[in-house]
């Protein structure tokens, strides 16, 4: 009985000791997707090309994971700026954008330089990659669409 009592006290102390250590689940992480056996998807060569161009021209600021830099460079993941109106997106790439910008409730204040030195094809592949990556599942962007926005600027 005495031993049981001591065990009980020990147990309570142990629980109160370890309680704080337990990590809380991170709600910002998306749930892990189950691995399914699927036929290997054909990878769009434009997405592959876009990834190379992204690494060269975009990754320094928007990062490998597309989530940008807190307070500074906005994320490209899960945002209407990327997955919404194509012309707006294309024009931001061509003309750049500076100053405060709110994305998903967070405020960013950095400098996006104009990328009008890139070809229509480079921009189209980058945006096709971005709209198909980081959890985004939006349609590709074609060279002609970039050319059309460029002509209006």
């Amino acid at each position, binding site marked *: 009985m005495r031993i049981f009592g001591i065990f009980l006290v020990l147990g309570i102390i142990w629980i109160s000791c370890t309680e704080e250590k337990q990590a809380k689940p991170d709600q910002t992480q998306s749930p892990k997707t189950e691995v399914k056996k699927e036929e290997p998807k054909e990878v769009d060569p434009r997405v592959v090309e876009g990834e190379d161009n992204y690494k060269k021209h975009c990754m320094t600021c928007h990062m*490998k994971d597309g989530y940008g830099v807190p307070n500074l460079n906005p994320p490209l993941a899960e945002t209407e700026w990327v997955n919404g109106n194509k012309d707006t997106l294309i024009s931001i790439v061509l003309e750049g954008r500076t100053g405060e910008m709110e994305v998903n409730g967070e405020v960013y204040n950095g400098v996006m330089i104009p990328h009008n030195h890139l070809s229509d094809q480079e921009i189209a592949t980058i945006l096709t990659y971005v709209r198909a990556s980081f959890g985004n599942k939006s349609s590709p962007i074609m060279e002609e669409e970039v050319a059309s926005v460029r002509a209006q600027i």
Partner: protein
Amino acid sequence: MLRNYSLILISLFSFLLYACEGSKTAEQEEKGPALPVADIDNGGIQLSDGFGAMVVADTLGIAGHIVLDDEGDLYVKLRRTKNEEGIIALRDSDGDGKMDIQQGFGNYNGTGIDIHENYLYASTDVAIHRYKLAPGELLPDTSSMETLISGFPDQGQHASKTFVFDDNNNIYVNVGAPSNACQEKMRQVGSPGLDPCPQLEYQAGIWRFNANEAGQTQKENGYKYATGIRNAMALDWNHSSNGLFALQHGRDDLHRLAEELYTEKDNSVLPGEEFFQIDQDDDFGWPYCYFDQFKGEKFLNPEYGGDRERQGRCEGIKKPIFGFPGHLAPNDLIFYQGDQFPSKYKNGAFIAFHGSWNRAPEPQGGYFVVFLPMDASGKITGEWEIFAEGFPQVETVESPRDAVYRPVGLAEGPDGSLYISDSRKGRIWRIMYYGSKEV
């Protein structure tokens, strides 16, 4: 047999109790007023031997700089207001170390905060305000707010107006550069640097003002105390050597803007983050020059004809007293004046590095608090060491977003404890020393 078990259990019991107590030691008992007990996990960070930490406040918002008054009340400036409050005042009313009273005021964004002669000073990105503190009161009379200085340029980049006081009623304000390297076309490949750089007139330096005169403007009343500094968020007055010190956020993108001269690897460590000892009228060379900490020399930036070797006009430019690795973003500096820590810490510099973003594709770095030993005359006396780390809560920071916490502000409490603020969630740690003094 039963007795043996009991003995073992009692030993275990005592051990657990001891473990629960944290790192309290017998010596502490001998030393007068006991320090509060550190959190068992030191609030999620790792510290130098003998030190422990407790989280005194948490989830305050996007914190900036911090300060404590002589009674141990803590004031936190929020970079962005939360619930229309930009300054959070905190008090430990029951002596357990945790700040159990929390009150907010000052509905404006900004980073800088400090106390000078019973006034609490706080900055926006274009002005510095102050409030009269009343003895014993946590909150100042907010209707007493006066604007000390206004008219700083409204800018997006490097906008934080951090500041510090000397012993002669002067206030020194960091006015950052609104660009990377003063190019004709901001941050664009191939665009040359403006020469002379017009931004040097009212930015990229440290301005001095009267600390007690309301209604000043930068143009009318400011004295350009030092120039050629890109952004010195981390600055402090060294009261023992009687001089100003600051650390610069060095330029970005040497690889992206001059890939024929600098590899991605080069860019991940260059230029050095410079630690300046500042005399009146000093010029540290931005935007024309950068510091290569491996060669110990200043070189011309590529936007101004630099080729990695040419020094040109940078040859006579005053060098830093030390160059840390590139892009680590020094965001606060204090010289330790207290007696709680071992004697090697006295007069030395604690530096909060916010952590990098401009090192990709290399892993990011910084995200720690560094100690650099110095003597009373402001001379460096030893190697720098990482004093507190583990803020990101992940092994490798690929992207700054991975970091759960990022150190941004430092302050010394009246008992010599060191306080660290975090810009991600607004956690505040109090660092205390529990070990032997004979180190």
